[in-house]
């Protein structure tokens, strides 16, 4: 008959079991959402006294670490003297009627991709003015395949995209001029106005 004091808890297997169970329990804590900033145990040089893009600055009054060029200066490659390309207007201030980018297959492909990213939320994938945002209450944009837009000079379209027009927002800061022209080349294709021969390289 064993006495009570003879029964000893199995210390070693117990410890081993604990060593296994604790991490397993922790398994539920892994990858769980948390609002608290991550703690790095060895922060080393994680934070260096330098600015990264879009960082906040405590030096400049507007709190922006990214600075604009000084007023009246032009960075190299940004002169933009070519009015036809950068404003869609010729010397007489009339809208240009020919796309400065020839509609090669490459340009049209680029234009289609950019159109689907930047224009389709409102104008719809087919350019019919039936985008998802319009269904939620945005002003209905015109149908690109209508006569009035088929007759619109490409320069005027370019200006609409660059500066916005009435309810249409400006895409100057989201799209480079090359991409704006590529989109317009693609629009002409949507409108059925690009000759099929033009697309051959």
């Amino acid at each position, binding site marked *: 008959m064993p006495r009570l004091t003879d029964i000893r808890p199995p210390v*070693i297997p117990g*410890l*081993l079991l*604990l*060593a296994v169970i*604790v*991490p397993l329990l*922790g398994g539920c*804590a*892994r*990858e*769980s*959402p*948390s*609002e*608290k*900033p*991550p*703690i*790095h*145990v060895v922060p*080393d*040089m*994680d*934070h*260096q006294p*330098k600015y*990264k*893009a*879009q960082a*906040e600055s405590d030096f400049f009054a*507007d*709190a*922006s670490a990214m600075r604009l060029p000084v007023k009246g200066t032009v960075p190299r490659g940004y002169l933009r003297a070519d009015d036809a390309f950068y404003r869609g207007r010729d010397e007489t201030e009339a809208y240009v009627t020919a796309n400065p980018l020839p509609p090669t297959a490459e340009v049209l492909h680029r234009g289609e*991709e950019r159109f*689907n*990213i*930047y224009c389709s*939320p409102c104008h719809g994938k087919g350019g019919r003015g039936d985008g*998802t*945002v319009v269904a*939620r*209450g*945005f*002003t209905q944009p015109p149908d690109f395949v209508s006569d009035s837009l088929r007759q619109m000079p490409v320069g005027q379209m370019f200006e609409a995209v660059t500066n916005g027009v009435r*309810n249409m*927002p400006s895409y100057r*800061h*989201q*799209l480079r001029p090359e991409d704006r022209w590529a989109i317009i080349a693609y629009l002409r294709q949507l409108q059925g106005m690009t000759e099929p021969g033009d697309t051959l390289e």
Partner: protein
Amino acid sequence: MAQIFPPWANRLPVLTLLAAAVLGLSAVSFVWYYFSPWYTDVGYRPTQPVFYSHLLHADSLGIDCRYCHSDVETSPTANIPPVQTCMNCHKIIKADSERLQPVVQSYVTKTPLKWVRVHKLPDFVYFDHSIHLRAGVGCAGCHGRVNEMLVVSQAKPLSMSWCLDCHRHPDDHLRPPDQITNMDWEPAADQVEFAAKQKHELGIEPTVDCSGCHR
């Protein structure tokens, strides 16, 4: 003379060794588990100044990631959009909604909206979005299904081993460059041949040199 040590003391050295081994093991597994970025970083989901939802904008409305993160293909950083981008639509849509007031205020008063950063590599690591996107690595592979997130949370550990796992074996992660923002893309059956072809055509050679990421 009476015995100084009781008989069980004979087992002490063995017990001490075993205890040390068990304690050491648990200490190592504790650090291995709880100090790893899988535990510390993944799931970080800060409260943002605006209740902005990717689920609504990127999924229900189907807006492409690049509509807002417009520099991601050409620059190292994927820019957080300026409020001007939000106002493209919100000048008209829900302009007087309570939830949008911080955006409208920021736009009107020209003061920056302070989004809280989610993904953050240590400052001694160099990362570049554009080169990954040009090689055809999709957003979803590194950020998870952002289009299903009401609030963005970190999905991957962004640890060095995570970077290297892909840099050593990128094949499963490559897709056609026009599918990079497609959240539903799945590798096809011929992924191996496709990856080999794409690696050859685009000259993809992910770096494993220290100086590639620590420049």
